[in-house]
C-alpha cells in the first residue's frame, strides 16, 4: 500500500464571486523513500495540494468536490478533525517557506518544540522512549531531552542552551532547522515541505536540502517537496510532478522528466530557466502566445483521453 495516494482530487474555493475550481483532478502517489518534487507556476495549486493532505484549509472556503486522498490507506477527506489532529505532527510533518514568520515570536524555541513533542507522544509515546503511563513532569523532561537530541543531530550546537532562546535570536537557516526538527520530532512518515528553501540563501539552502535527504535515508520517510526551483528538484528529488492550473500535466522519475520532457508546459518551464550567459533579450518567460499553445495541447490531450 502506498504511503500517500491522491486520486482524482477536486477542490473548489468559495469567495464572494462564487465557487472557483482550483484543483481539477490531481493524481499522485508517494511511496516511502521517495522524494517527490512538485513544481509549477504560482497559483497552479501546489501549496493547496500540500495543505489538503493535512486538511489545513478552512472548511468555510475550501470544498472538496471529488476524489480521495488516502494516507496509509485511510481517506483524510472523510476523516474527522480528531483523527486529523492525530495525523498532524505524529504521521504527517510539514515545513513552510519563510522561517522568519513560522516560529511564534513570543515563545522560546524549547516551549514550542516541547509542545509539539508532547502532542505527538500522546499517540506514540515510544518516540520519547515512554510507555504512556509516566507523570506529566516525566513526559515533559523526556520531550525536552528528545528535542535537545534532535536539534543537536540537526547541527545546532549547544542545543540545551538554544532551547531557552527566542526565535529572533536565530539566523534564518537555523530557524528552518528548528522548524524541520519540530516537524520531525513526532517521527512522521510523510514530510510535506512547501518551498522550505525559497527564503534562504544558496549555501544555507544546500545544507537544508542535505538535511532532508539524510532524513529520507535514515528514516525511510516519503517527502513531498513543493518548489519553483527546477535546480533544487534535480539536486534532491527522485520524482517530479509538474502542475499547471490545477492539474498535474507530467510526472515521473526526475532523470526521465527533466532529460526528456514530454509535455509542452514542462518544456516551456525548463526553457524559462536562465543560463549564466543569458542576455536580457534571451530570457524566456511563458508569454501569451505560448500559453495559448499550452492550453490547446492540454485540450487536445483531454479529448484524446475521453475518445
Amino acid at each position, binding site marked *: 500500500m502506498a504511503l500517500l495516494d491522491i486520486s482524482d482530487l477536486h477542490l473548489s474555493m468559495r469567495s464572494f464571486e462564487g465557487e472557483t475550481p482550483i484543483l481539477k483532478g490531481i493524481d499522485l502517489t508517494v511511496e516511502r523513500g521517495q522524494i517527490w518534487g512538485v513544481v509549477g507556476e504560482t497559483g497552479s495549486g501546489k501549496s493547496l495540494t500540500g495543505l489538503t493532505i*493535512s486538511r*489545513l484549509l478552512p472548511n468555510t472556503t475550501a470544498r472538496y468536490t471529488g476524489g480521495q486522498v488516502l494516507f496509509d490507506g485511510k481517506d483524510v477527506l472523510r476523516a474527522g478533525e480528531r483523527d486529523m489532529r492525530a495525523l*498532524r505532527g505524529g504521521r504527517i510533518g510539514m515545513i513552510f517557506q519563510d522561517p522568519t514568520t*513560522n516560529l511564534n*515570536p*513570543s515563545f522560546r524555541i524549547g516551549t514550542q518544540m516541547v509542545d509539539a513533542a508532547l*502532542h*505527538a507522544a500522546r499517540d506514540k509515546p515510544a518516540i520519547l522512549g515512554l510507555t504512556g503511563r509516566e507523570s506529566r513532569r516525566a513526559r515533559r523532561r523526556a520531550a525536552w531531552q528528545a528535542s535537545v537530541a534532535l536539534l543537536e543531530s540537526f547541527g545546532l550546537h549547544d542545543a540545551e542552551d538554544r532551547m531557552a532562546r527566542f526565535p529572533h535570536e536565530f539566523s534564518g537557516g537555523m530557524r528552518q532547522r528548528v522548524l524541520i526538527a519540530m516537524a520531525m520530532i513526532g517521527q512522521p512518515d510523510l514530510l510535506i515541505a512547501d518551498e522550505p528553501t525559497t527564503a534562504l540563501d544558496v549555501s544555507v539552502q544546500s545544507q537544508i536540502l542535505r538535511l532532508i535527504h539524510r532524513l529520507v535515508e535514515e528514516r525511510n520517510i516519503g517527502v513531498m517537496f513543493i518548489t519553483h526551483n527546477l535546480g533544487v528538484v534535480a539536486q534532491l528529488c527522485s520524482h517530479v510532478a509538474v502542475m499547471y492550473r490545477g492539474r498535474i500535466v507530467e510526472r515521473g522519475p526526475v532523470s526521465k522528466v527533466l532529460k526528456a520532457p514530454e509535455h509542452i508546459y514542462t518544456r516551456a518551464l525548463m526553457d524559462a530557466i536562465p543560463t549564466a550567459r543569458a542576455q536580457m533579450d534571451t530570457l524566456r518567460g511563458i508569454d501569451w502566445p505560448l500559453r495559448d499553445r499550452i492550453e490547446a495541447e492540454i485540450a487536445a490531450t483531454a479529448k484524446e483521453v475521453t475518445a
Partner: protein
Amino acid sequence: MLWYVIRRLLLIIPTLLGLSVIVFAIARLLPGDPVGLAAGPNATPEVIASVAAEFGLDKPIPVQYWNYLTGLLQGDWGVSLFSRRPVAADLAEFVPATLELVIAALLIAVIVGIPLGLLAAIWRDGIFDYLTRTVSLGAIAMPRFFLGLLLQLAFAMALNWLPLSGRFPLIEFPPERITGFYTVDAILIGDWHALGVALQHLALPALALSLSPLATILRMMRASTIEVLQQDYILTERALGIPSWIILFKYTLRNAVSATLTVIGLYVSWLLGGTVLVETIFDWPGIGLYSTQAILGQDFMPVIGVTLVIAMIYLVTSVIVDILQAVLNPKVRLQ
C-alpha cells in the same frame, strides 16, 4: 532592566517640573479675580489686600511659582482659597477614592474585555461576534452619565440590590485608613463586613465607568487576535497537531494581548480625566468632583495639584505598560 526602570522613573521629575510651570502659568494668568472671590462680595480693599498677603498672592508670579515649588518639595501643595484646607490633605483623601474607582473599572474592562474579544475573534462572523460588535458600539457611543443613570434606575431603584450613591454609608465608619483604598484597607485589617459594603458602593460607578474601555479593549482584542490567527506560525502550530485550545489560549493570547496593552495604558489617563461625570452622578468623593468645584471657584491651588497628580499617575502607568510589554514581547528591549 532595573536600570531602565530607575531611569524612566527619574525622567518623570523633569516632565513634572515642566508641566508645573505651564499649569501654574495658565492658572495664574487666566482672567478672573480669585482673591476677590475668596474674600467675599462685600470685602473692603484692606481685607482683599490682607487675604492676598495671607496666600502670598501679592508677590510677582515667578516668586509665587518659586514659593510653590519649594513648598512642593516639602510636601506642601498650597492651600485652598475657600476651604483654607491644605491641598495635600484634600488630595490624600480624594486621590485614593478616584484611583480605587478607576482601577476597579479598568479591572472589569480587562477581565471581561480580553476573553470576550478573543472569543469574538474565534467565532468571527458568528452570532456572538455580531452581538458583541453591536453592543460594544452602543457602549462606546453611550454617554457615561446616561449609563450611570440607567444602572442606578435598574439596580438601586427598581431591584434595590445596590446602594444608589456614595462611597460608604454615612452612618458607618469606613475602615481604618492605611492606603486610603477602602477595599484594600478592609482586606488589610480583615474587616469583611466593611469590604462587602465598600464593594457594593463601588460596583455601579465602576461598571458605568468600565463599559467604554471594556468595549474598546474587546474590539482591539478581537482585531489583534484575528491578525495573529492569520500569522504563519499559527498554521505551523496547527500543522504540528498542537490542540487548538493550546494554540488559542497560549500561543495566540500572548501575542494578541501585547498589541492590546498599549490601548489599556492609554485608557488609564482617559479614565482619570473622565471620572467627573460618574463621580457627580454617584456622589463619589474623588478628584473629579474636587477639581470641578475648584475650577468653578477659580481656586487654582487644587487645580494645579490635581493636574500634577494625574500627570504623575499617567507617567508611572506608561512605565508599567512598557515593562509589561517587554515581559510579553521578547523582541522589546528595554534601554
